[in-house]
């Protein structure tokens, strides 16, 4: 396979997807909806999920909610494929929540509260920090581990670049599909990280093993060969994982769909980056003498 020869095309494709993601964030931010669909866990406030039990009128619902809570612009979003809505508000207390549900039930007798969340500003701030900290610590720990195992800082570095790529692609999915960013967000990101590194390592392990089969200035050939040798594995593993996560996405309740969708995007991005990006980056980091004939 001519991966190294085509590396620039792969880099451009990746950059394009990532830019689309940032573009979506920018457009959303300009529209006043927030760059990402932040959940109350990160912003603080109250969120409620109410199943209305049938058809409903969005404008009417909004006025009911405004009246019960005294907040002029509640965010109301329909939950795909259901009669449920997700409502986001500034934090309200227990009596107000009861009043709100009763007010909705007065108009929609079958309405049922499915889930309620109330998060204060201090907690949401802590969650943001914990998310940042977790991602950074995991990244650094992986970098150290790979560098030690492969005796090569360039290997660790390129695996990490591939990781950042996967995270950015997953972020693009969050921005484009307006997937709520809550505390499963960190879990999704870190799982994608772990998964993608796993794939990259299988390939790097092959590159390490193929050392004796190639001359030092044949790195391009060596990387290409290693990627082809592990290609069947990369594809099959991604497929089996996609089967299981796909089953969660198709059959799951909304809150788990929000978890499965970015995970699927991440798995595909991880497979792509380990095949097309990570080896290419490693190659780019190499000194000229080892690069060989491929410019």
């Amino acid at each position: 396979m001519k991966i190294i020869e085509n590396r620039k095309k792969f880099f451009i494709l990746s950059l394009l997807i990532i830019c689309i993601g940032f573009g979506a964030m920018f457009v959303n931010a300009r529209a006043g909806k927030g760059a990402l669909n932040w959940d109350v866990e990160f912003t603080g406030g109250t969120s409620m999920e109410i199943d209305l039990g049938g058809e409903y009128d969005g404008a009417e619902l909004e006025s009911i909610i405004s009246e019960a809570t005294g907040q002029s612009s509640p965010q109301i979003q329909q939950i795909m494929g259901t009669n449920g809505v997700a409502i986001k508000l500034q934090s309200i207390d227990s009596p107000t929540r009861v009043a709100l549900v009763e007010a909705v039930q007065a108009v929609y007798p079958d309405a049922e509260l499915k889930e309620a969340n109330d998060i204060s500003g201090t907690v949401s701030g802590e969650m943001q920090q914990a998310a940042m900290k977790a991602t950074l610590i995991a990244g650094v720990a992986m970098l150290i581990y790979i560098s030690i195992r492969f005796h090569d800082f360039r290997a660790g570095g390129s695996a990490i670049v591939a990781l950042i790529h996967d995270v950015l692609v997953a972020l693009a999915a969050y921005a484009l599909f307006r997937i709520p960013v809550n505390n499963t967000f960190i879990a999704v990101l870190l799982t994608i990280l772990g998964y993608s590194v796993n794939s990259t390592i299988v390939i790097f392990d092959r590159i390490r093993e193929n050392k004796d089969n190639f001359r030092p200035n044949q790195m391009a050939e060596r990387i290409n060969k290693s990627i082809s040798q592990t290609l069947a594995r990369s594809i099959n593993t991604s497929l089996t994982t996609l089967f299981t996560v796909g089953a969660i996405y198709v059959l799951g309740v909304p809150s788990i769909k929000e978890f499965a969708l970015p995970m699927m995007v991440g798995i595909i991005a991880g497979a792509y980056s380990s095949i097309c990006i990570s080896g290419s980056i490693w190659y780019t980091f190499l000194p000229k003498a080892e690069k060989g004939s491929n410019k």
Partner: protein
Amino acid sequence: MKVRGRMMLLVTLIVAVLLSMLSYKGIGAEKALSVNRIEQGLDLSGGVDIVYEADQPTVTDAEMKAAISLLQGRLDWSGWTEAEVAREGDKRIRVQIPGVADAEEAIQEIGQTAQLSFVDEAGNVLLTGDMVKDAYKQVGATDPNGPSLPYVALEFNEEGKQRFAEATQNNIGKVIYIVMDDEVISAPVVQTAITDGHAMITGQFGGEEAEELASLIRAGSLPFNLNVIQMKNVGARLGADALSTGIKAGIVGIILVLVYMLISYKLLGFAADWALVIYIGLELVALSLFHVTLTLPGIAGIILSVGMAVDANIVIFERVKEELVMGKSLRAAIKNGFQRATSAIIDGNVTTLIAAAVLFFLGSGTVKGFATTLMIGIIVSMFTALVITRIIVKGLMYAGVHNPKYYGLRLK
């Protein structure tokens, strides 16, 4: 060799059957180690999860303990005996009530401040809980000839001392009601004026109840308020839906993986499927054994780990195929396949483990549940892939399946 191979297969078959039965039915009437014993998180059972924070910059351990027993006491009194109250960090308390039908009622009930008051027969409040300096359990005779019983001793502060002296002076021969949250907990008849600032609450209670009441009264004079800083309420139906769809998704996902492995790797795929059944059994037993609380993301973690569990097998089988194509004998190909794949499998899994461990230590609530199941999944899957699959594959080979075609060799 043939006998040995058959023995290996027989043993793994027995292990697979036993594990499936164990995870399904468990041991004895208690169903120990079975799926039935796996605890469900609030997002599956439905219920409410509240975090309180003291509104003072610093609090002492004793004050926090009093606050915890206050909350515990109120929950018990209201009949939510399954509720759990635990301290979190310096000045936070997490309350979890599973399966509660009306969460808001629970929140409002436990959110009230405990009000201890002393009321006379006419209903006048004579004294309130904030004038109590201390309350503790004592055991002793409450009247000169009576038996030794537990009671609650009260000590008033200066203001309380004066007020109590006055109150007892004015009510000799009458009843003073001791009321907690609108409930009369004791109704003693005043014998003499009490001027030393000490009083006792007697009643029909055992040692533990006296202890609880004492801490409730102490909590009534907590120097801080508890504010709700986080509340999560999951309806029981949503929880039940989440669990049943999660299980359904798991079964569908597993079947897809089993079929795919069989189609892609034929006999080796069959071995991997066999190992996967053992893996799922082990995973469920492990969840039960380590008392992991299963959450919705936790289920996702398990399902995800099934997809990843076969990864190690795929790495190995691809290697075996390659060795066969290179013209190695079946035995050598299998030996080399496992050996050469090991380093990649370990390196890959360790990095995923790093991610899961970081999540476990830094994450909270449901995310921790996800990290736990993922970690257990990774460790168990490494074991089944490297050990169990090897035994099954070797067993098949020794038992007489020699044609390399069944192990993935395709002649072009």
